[in-house]
């Protein structure tokens, strides 16, 4: 029975603890999986759909976007047997998109030139476009073959192909048809432009001249531009022309009845040594049906301005939030001119000041800027004839580390106060008014540093379950200044909790005493019994004594005797086993006093008589036995009767 209970208990315990815990500890409905155990798979339909999307972008002339997405396929996680085919497939598309982009660019340019009656470059552009179109057709044929190989490798036509894969293949085929159509359209456009070119060659050519006066001027000054528009030596009247500075139009003029034109323009505030002007004639309206376009020869003039010299001095290591000074001198042709000075950190403007000659700006770097290398730029804005100037300097944004001098006691008695003192500083000096947070177990105290960076903290260490051992005090300093780093240090202290330690010792000693006393009691009992008798009496295994039902006078006597023997067994440890006679037990009992021994001898005699006599005992005998029993018990317990 006991074994069964033990077995069932152990099974129940194991059943509760081990199989249940992982289930109990695993919340459901969380969306992630172990990457080490997950399996990889290729989504074939997704691959084909991606190519279809890329081709669709190309058919909308978004070649750059299509190319970018194609480049990203290099990052695709593909099986090796597919990877090579995909690389070749992508390579073909890459070439096709580049070719199509070139064709469109060439045809656009040719179309634009033809629209403005500029035919000089058109023929070569169209020839170039035609060669590219031939290349595109060749690439399309290669792509068709590669598509068949890829779809075959992906198992599009196998029985096991999913409907998704089949649909994706269909979409890819449609996309390929669309790009074939695109190449055909471009080919048609090329042929159309070639026909326009032939028509334009029949128009009259024009000539255009340009002269600038004066040939040298300050920026902001007015200059005059003039010239003549003619066709085969005859003036062209009312022709609309544009005057360009480099590639930017600066004026529009019309030719007069003699074909001449004239205009004045202000020299823009561009601070460089020369500027080049050109006049362009592009016939429009009715003129477009008669004349070809023409450009004047370029006219270059010398530009004059006052250069600005800028000298800057600044620190190369800056701390975020900590002010620093940028000083220097701006010199504008030795003129006493007030200039606008701006300071940037990378692209962010930090300060601006109007100054003449020497200047000095106090600047606060942004508090949120991450540490690292930056560019400090000081710029002087241009002003009329005075050019601008820029000085760029590499700086490093840093955070100042914190240094600690901390004193903590080496031994701490609990409960009690722990005195922590110290000083906080960095390379710029002591850190003032900074919150210092000291933590010891669950106790925390915050103070602020004084003017010299010093602090003193009295940490309350309350009574808790600690005994003895090393513990950690952590000290956090969070400076108010953003240029200082937040810092934490820890110190070990040896803690002693006298109360808990004493208690633990007391409990251990008490346990030891109890165990020792029990052992001594057992030993005392063993010593009281003669060794010879100990061998004879198997008292270590007490047997269950049969309990006959005792009634009548005889029962009263036996009951009294049994009460006394039970008391003797408890006090002396001598057990009355079934094989011991009443007299033998009387001898073995060794009662503590002679009076008790006499009474127990009399009680034993009465009991023997009651048990073995042929006559029933009298009422008085039973009363006597009961009185003797009471006296013996009292004697055994208190030593008095």
């Amino acid at each position, binding site marked *: 029975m006991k074994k069964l209970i033990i077995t069932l208990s152990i099974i129940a315990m194991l059943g509760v603890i081990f199989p249940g815990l992982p289930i109990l*500890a695993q919340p459901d409905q969380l969306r992630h999986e172990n990457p080490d155990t997950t399996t990889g798979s290729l989504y074939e339909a997704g691959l084909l759909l991606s190519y279809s999307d890329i081709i669709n972008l190309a058919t909308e002339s978004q070649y750059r976007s299509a190319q970018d997405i194609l480049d990203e396929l290099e990052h695709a996680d593909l099986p090796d047997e597919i990877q090579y085919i995909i690389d070749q497939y992508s390579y073909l598309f890459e070439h096709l998109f580049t070719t199509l982009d070139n064709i469109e660019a060439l045809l656009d340019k040719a179309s634009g030139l033809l629209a403005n009656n500029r035919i000089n470059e058109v023929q070569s552009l169209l020839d170039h476009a035609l060669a590219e179109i031939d290349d595109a057709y060749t690439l399309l044929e290669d792509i068709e073959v590669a598509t068949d190989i890829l779809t075959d490798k992906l198992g599009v036509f196998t029985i096991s192909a999913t409907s998704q894969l089949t649909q994706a293949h269909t979409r890819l085929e449609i996309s390929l048809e669309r790009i074939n159509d695109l190449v055909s359209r471009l080919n048609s456009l090329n042929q159309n432009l070639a026909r326009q070119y032939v028509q334009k060659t029949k128009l009259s050519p024009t000539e255009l001249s340009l002269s600038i006066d004066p040939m040298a001027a300050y920026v902001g000054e007015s200059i005059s531009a003039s010239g003549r528009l003619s066709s085969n030596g005859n003036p062209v009247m009312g022709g609309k022309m544009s005057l360009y500075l480099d590639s930017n139009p600066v004026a529009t003029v019309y030719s007069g009845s003699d074909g001449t034109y004239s205009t004045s323009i202000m020299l823009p505030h561009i601070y460089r040594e020369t500027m080049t002007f050109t006049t362009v004639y592009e016939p429009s309206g009715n003129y477009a049906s008669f004349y070809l376009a023409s450009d004047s020869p370029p006219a270059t003039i010398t530009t004059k301005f006052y250069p600005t010299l800028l000298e800057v001095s600044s620190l190369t290591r800056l701390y975020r939030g900590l002010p620093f000074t940028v000083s220097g001198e701006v010199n504008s042709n030795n003129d006493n001119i007030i200039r606008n000075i701006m300071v940037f950190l990378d692209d962010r403007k930090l300060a601006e000041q109007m100054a003449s000659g020497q200047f000095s700006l106090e600047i606060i770097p942004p508090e949120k800027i991450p540490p690292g290398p930056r560019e400090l730029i000081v710029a002087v804005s241009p002003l009329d004839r005075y050019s601008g100037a820029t000085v760029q300097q590499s700086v490093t944004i840093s955070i100042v580390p914190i240094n600690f001098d901390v004193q903590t006691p080496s031994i701490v008695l609990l*409960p009690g106060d722990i005195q922590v003192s110290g000083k906080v500083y960095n390379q710029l000096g002591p850190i003032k008014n900074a919150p210092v947070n000291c933590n010891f177990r*669950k106790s925390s105290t915050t103070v602020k540093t004084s003017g010299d960076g010093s602090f003193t903290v009295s940490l309350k260490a309350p*009574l*808790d379950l600690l005994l003895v051992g090393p513990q950690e005090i952590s000290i956090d300093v969070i400076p108010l200044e953003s240029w200082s780093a937040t810092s934490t240090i820890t110190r070990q202290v040896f803690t002693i909790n006298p109360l808990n330690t004493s208690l633990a010792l007391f*409990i251990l000693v008490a346990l030891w005493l*109890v165990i020792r006393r029990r052992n001594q009691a057992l030993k005392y009992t063993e010593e009281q019994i003669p060794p010879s008798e100990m061998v004879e009496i198997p008292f270590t295994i007490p047997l269950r004594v049969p309990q006959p039902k005792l009634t009548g006078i005889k029962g009263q006597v036996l009951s009294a005797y049994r009460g006394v023997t039970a008391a003797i067994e408890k006090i002396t440890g001598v057990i009355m086993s079934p094989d011991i006679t009443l007299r033998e037990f009387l001898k073995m009992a060794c009662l503590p006093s002679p009076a008790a021994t006499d009474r127990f001898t009399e009680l034993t005699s009465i009991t023997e008589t009651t048990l073995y006599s042929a006559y029933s005992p009298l009422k008085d005998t039973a009363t006597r036995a009961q009185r003797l029993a009471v006296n013996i018990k009292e004697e055994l317990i208190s030593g008095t009767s």
Partner: protein
Amino acid sequence: MELRRFLFIIAAVMIIALILAAWFLPSNDDYRLDNPFWNGIKNIKDEYEVQPLVSLASLPSSPTRATLLLIPYLSSIPTELDHLNRFVSQGGRLIIADDYGHGNEILAHLGLEARFSGQALLDPLVNYKNERFPRIIHLQPDPLTDNINDLVLNHATSLLNVSDTSVLAMSSPFSFLDYNGDRTREANEPTGPLPVISRHELGKGEVILISDPSIFINSMDTIADNEGLIQNIADTASVLYVDQSHLISSELYRTRNWLQQARDILSTPIWTAGLVLAAIVAALIPIWYKKKKPTVEN
């Protein structure tokens, strides 16, 4: 009497065994700092100085440059939302890493327009092993993405209503949001590039959104440059707090919590004094019992 004593001993042994198991068995709860298994974030605790937070009320009053990593798998009460608002507005950096949790409640309270889409972000091509692990290769230059070439997410989602200037990382053009869970890109399902990490300035502080908290788990930090992201977060934070109060708890974790609370209560001066008194009484009982034993037995 003997059977009763035996059953008492068995019950006591079982209770002690359960307590020891709850106390010493390592946690396997998701995103727990003390979970050393694949789904925990103990590596972060081991490699960086992090402060676990069991209550948002413990956030510092002056949080300048402090960072809080929050995985909101449980809803936040209004008081907690106020704590978060105060933390950010006073200069703290709040990193909300969420996919299918309660991050949008926090964003709404903070007054940000950005949201977590809550739909599965799949990438059938640019991925790690399969489409549920999208590889992120579009990263904007930022202190958080410094020295990172690619990241790998694990059952992620994407961000919505994020401006181009706020985006720090985007998925590949092949990725898409799987609205209907059929793992196939449909015409109505948004395709990549989709934002997965963004930065939003708020008050004196800022909010960083990461559309997958699993990027921080132990089994993911060695994949791609995921560890670099954690490193950058730690490097740019004066103090890194990791919230543990909005994670789903298992029974094992709850039991351990109760035990810890019990220990904490017993560690208070009053309870410790009571415990000391009880121990003294318990130690004296056998002595007192021994002296009185004959009378009792009599």
